[in-house]
């Protein structure tokens, strides 16, 4: 049995890099980690696996050759006026780069899953900047951790132990830190917090405005704001003002609720105000393991982090117009290629209806819900387990994914599949 150390987990944006994977006969037999999601990923990635390219014939997905599947995808993209190329958060930066090249070649629009997770966070950062830090700094120094609209106990299960409230940092021990949770539900994270503040749904912005008033010593003439008694807001403002180094981690509770990027504006300006009193940083809790990498790659390739339109021959970025949900729900695109994502499981009904009404190609290691509905499916190696590459942690630190087992015979990494599609697209375009 081979033991591979320091394996990055291709799970969430925490990108924990201290996992031990035990391999026997090219199979993962055990993984040493204390994260349920990570364990499930390493031990189950090979279940429900598709190892054959599929093409829909007479309403049914039927096995085909890789060459025929590549041909079909290339033709779908070349024949479309305005294809959408979507996904990218569950693969390497190397594959994301190929995706951008392909979108430019076919004059389509490329978007990553940021669009339905922290898209509003990016808009907020573009408005106000981002007073942030690395997770290492949080671990070493933070004495006040605020989780606002996020639930790491369920979504980033080792975040608290490795980087924040429960971590043993160089200058801070868990007992020297305080944890505050602001949420609409008493989540598992909230149950272990020093202070839980239950805000009414869709009223986070009001609560942040009240906190800023408190910090500016202005009087609030109400008994409660956003369902929170004024005394509790005072208590939180005092905790924030008097800490030595505070961090506000925020999640989709802010980006998916009423206010969207205005909630992020509110959070960033709150942190800016706090920096008049003490040191304070802010960080989004990024979900998929390399969604941050997708933003990095898109930005260095095109100048924009997501929702990039190439239909005019140059990159254009117009959230609300070139974002995937808007493109799909308004019926702009006439074909879609999905890579490393499952929009049928994650986008609203009317966006999925349009997605499935036009030619749909999928590159994915599994039969996802989107693959189940596709016209053509190309299986690929599982990035982070069967293929290496680069990924970015939620704090923007680049890290190296390891290959720990070989993919099934004949299964290529998505970078190679995208290369083959790109080559065939160029041949078809040249022949026009």
């Amino acid at each position, binding site marked *: 049995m081979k033991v591979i150390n320091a394996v990055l987990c291709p799970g969430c944006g925490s990108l924990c890099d201290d996992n031990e994977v035990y391999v026997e006969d090219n199979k993962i037999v055990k993984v040493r980690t204390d994260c349920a999601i990570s364990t499930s990923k390493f031990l189950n990635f090979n279940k429900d696996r598709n190892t054959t390219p599929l093409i829909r014939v007479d*309403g049914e997905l039927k096995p085909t050759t890789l060459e025929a599947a590549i041909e079909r995808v290339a033709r779908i993209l070349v024949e479309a006026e305005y294809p959408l190329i979507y996904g990218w958060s569950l693969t390497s930066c190397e594959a994301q780069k190929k995706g951008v090249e392909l979108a430019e070649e076919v004059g389509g629009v490329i978007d990553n899953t940021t669009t339905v997770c922290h898209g509003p966070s990016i808009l907020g950062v573009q408005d106000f900047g981002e007073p942030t830090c690395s997770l290492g700094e949080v671990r070493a120094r933070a004495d006040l951790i605020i989780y606002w609209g996020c639930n790491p106990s369920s*979504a980033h299960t080792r975040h608290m132990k490795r980087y924040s409230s429960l971590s043993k940092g160089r200058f801070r021990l868990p007992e020297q830190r305080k944890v505050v949770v602001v949420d*609409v*539900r008493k*989540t598992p994270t909230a149950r272990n917090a020093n202070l839980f503040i239950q805000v009414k*749904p*869709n009223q986070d912005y009001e609560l942040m405005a009240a906190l800023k008033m408190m910090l500016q010593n202005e009087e609030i003439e109400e008994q409660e704001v956003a369902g929170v008694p004024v005394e509790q807001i005072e208590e939180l403002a005092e905790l924030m003002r008097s800490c030595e180094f505070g961090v506000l981690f925020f999640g989709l509770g802010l980006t998916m*609720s009423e206010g969207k990027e205005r909630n992020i504006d509110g959070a960033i300006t709150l942190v800016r105000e706090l920096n008049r009193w003490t040191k304070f940083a802010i960080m989004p809790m990024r979900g998929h393991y390399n969604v941050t990498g997708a933003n990095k790659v898109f930005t260095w390739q095109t100048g924009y982090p997501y929702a990039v339109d190439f239909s005019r021959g140059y990159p254009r970025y117009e959230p609300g117009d070139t974002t995937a949900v808007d493109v799909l729900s308004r019926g702009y695109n006439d074909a879609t290629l999905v890579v490393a994502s499952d929009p049928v499981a*994650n986008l609203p009904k009317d966006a999925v209806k349009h997605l*499935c009404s036009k030619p749909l190609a999928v590159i994915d290691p599994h039969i996802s819900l989107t693959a189940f509905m596709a016209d053509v499916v190309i299986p690929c190696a599982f990035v982070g387990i069967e293929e290496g590459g680069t990924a970015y942690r939620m704090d923007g630190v680049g890290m190296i994914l390891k290959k720990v087992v070989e993919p099934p015979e004949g299964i290529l990494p998505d970078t190679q599949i995208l290369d083959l599609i790109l080559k065939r697209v160029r041949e078809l375009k040249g022949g026009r």
Partner: protein
Amino acid sequence: MVRFTLLTGRSLVQGVGKEAGKFSDKYIQEVSTCQMDPEDLKMLNIKPGDCVRLTTEYGSVVLKVSSSALVHRGSVFIPYGPYANLLIGTKTGGTGMPSFKGIPVEVEPAPGESVPELKELLVKMYGRK
């Protein structure tokens, strides 16, 4: 029929279940069950395991209900997934992001109805010609 606030989000079981496969029983059971406060269940005269019909401005679906002390009175929580998405609209207000949380939803007991099977639901809703 009573009006609640719909919250969708990640749950640990949904996160673990999706790694076991989107067609695994664990994933499907989790994403097709809504969670409500025990007092709200009493008010609606339903018990855990019963079916309820949820209806928003954008759509309607029948789900199983479970009792959860984590969800407060007046709210309904559904883990992210293909069932919750039937209740979500596509208006993004110029941000690209639909509202997945904080949506008005009406809940009513649905005796005699059942949760649609996932593959049948996908084909019925989005079926390819």
